[in-house]
């Protein structure tokens, strides 16, 4: 029939069992954020059946799509940055979660980026919250090229993508964790480090790579190696 009516038929499938999958993914996110520096592997069984929007395959992994389905709802806003701002991705999020997709991604409570498109200036312009209401600061969900803990970081980087080793200390970390992240530039990490002094304001970061996630909340002290 007409293009207007068939757009629902193009929406990719969400979780096969939404209640269980969203709880499982949320638990992983909770663990990632409360223990920064740990890389969490999302449960493959929970992700089964979910089709990351076709327009985004290759640009985001299923972890990012799973985060959208879990963290977003009708009471919050989503920003899709750069190449992620496709009508199909917006339709996917709106249908399954009821979220409002913000016209300007920098205004949203949750903002999704691919690492190449997240410029340090965008970091600056995203809402970090206020001293009275620091919790209103946005959460960034960034798809990165590689994500590895100290133990996993054996393979040498191919050089095409900048890899940085971050040393993390602070709440949720007993002594120190090292995280090897390929994708975001040094300038971006420096911006993040500079924002540390604005605590409690700041941006929370969730890193996605394929079906794995890690998080660097604003309370974590980051040092570049």
């Amino acid at each position, binding site marked *: 029939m007409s293009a207007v*009516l*068939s757009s*629902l038929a193009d929406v990719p499938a969400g979780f096969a069992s939404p209640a269980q999958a969203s709880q499982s993914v949320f638990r992983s996110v909770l663990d990632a954020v409360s223990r920064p520096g740990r890389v969490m592997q999302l449960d493959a069984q929970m992700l089964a059946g979910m089709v990351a929007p076709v327009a985004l395959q290759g640009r985001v992994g299923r972890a990012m799509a799973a985060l959208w389905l879990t963290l977003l709802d009708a009471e919050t806003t989503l920003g899709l940055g750069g190449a992620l701002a496709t009508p199909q991705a917006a339709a996917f999020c709106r249908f399954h979660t009821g979220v409002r997709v913000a016209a300007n991604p920098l205004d949203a409570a949750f903002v999704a980026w691919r690492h190449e498109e997240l410029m340090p200036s965008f970091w600056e312009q995203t809402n970090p919250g206020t001293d009275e209401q620091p919790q209103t600061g946005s959460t960034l969900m960034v798809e990165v090229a590689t994500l590895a803990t100290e133990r996993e970081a054996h393979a040498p980087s191919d050089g095409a993508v900048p890899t940085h080793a971050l040393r993390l200390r602070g709440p949720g970390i007993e002594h120190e964790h090292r995280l090897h992240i390929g994708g975001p530039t040094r300038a971006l990490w420096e911006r993040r480090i500079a924002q540390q002094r604005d605590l409690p304001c700041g941006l929370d970061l969730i890193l996605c790579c394929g079906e794995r996630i890690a998080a660097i909340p604003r309370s974590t002290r980051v040092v570049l190696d």
Partner: protein
Amino acid sequence: MTDIAKVTLERQRWLAVLAHAERGAIEQHAALLAEYSFEWLRAPEIGLTMVRARIGGEGDRFNLGEATVTRCAVRHQPARGAATAGIGYLLGRDPARCAWVARFDALLQVAALHELLEREVIEPLRAATARKRAQQRAHTATSSVRFYALQSELAT
């Protein structure tokens, strides 16, 4: 009327027929669905919706109250042509019936099946609902009281 408006109106009509059909009536036709395959876009879920009405039927809007609604959406890929999506929205709690409505909606959008389903499913359901409503109206009419001495409030 534009093509889209005509198509939308038609779809609203058959969705209304499906939604108002009694469980027993639509269950009889449900055997037709077995030979087609469907994929869940949204598995049946039960929730509350706020029903709104207008004062006097045409005045200001107000919240009438909350109603329990079951809803679901399915996708059907026919042998030829584009995939269609069917939706079911029903008052009350009935996931199975909701699934039948959504599946029929998806099939009715497939050009090859449209005629057949209109004839075999929608028409009988429409007739059955109309009969039931006529019966109810007739039954209610027997208790209607007319006050000849008082003027009607409505200027009809």
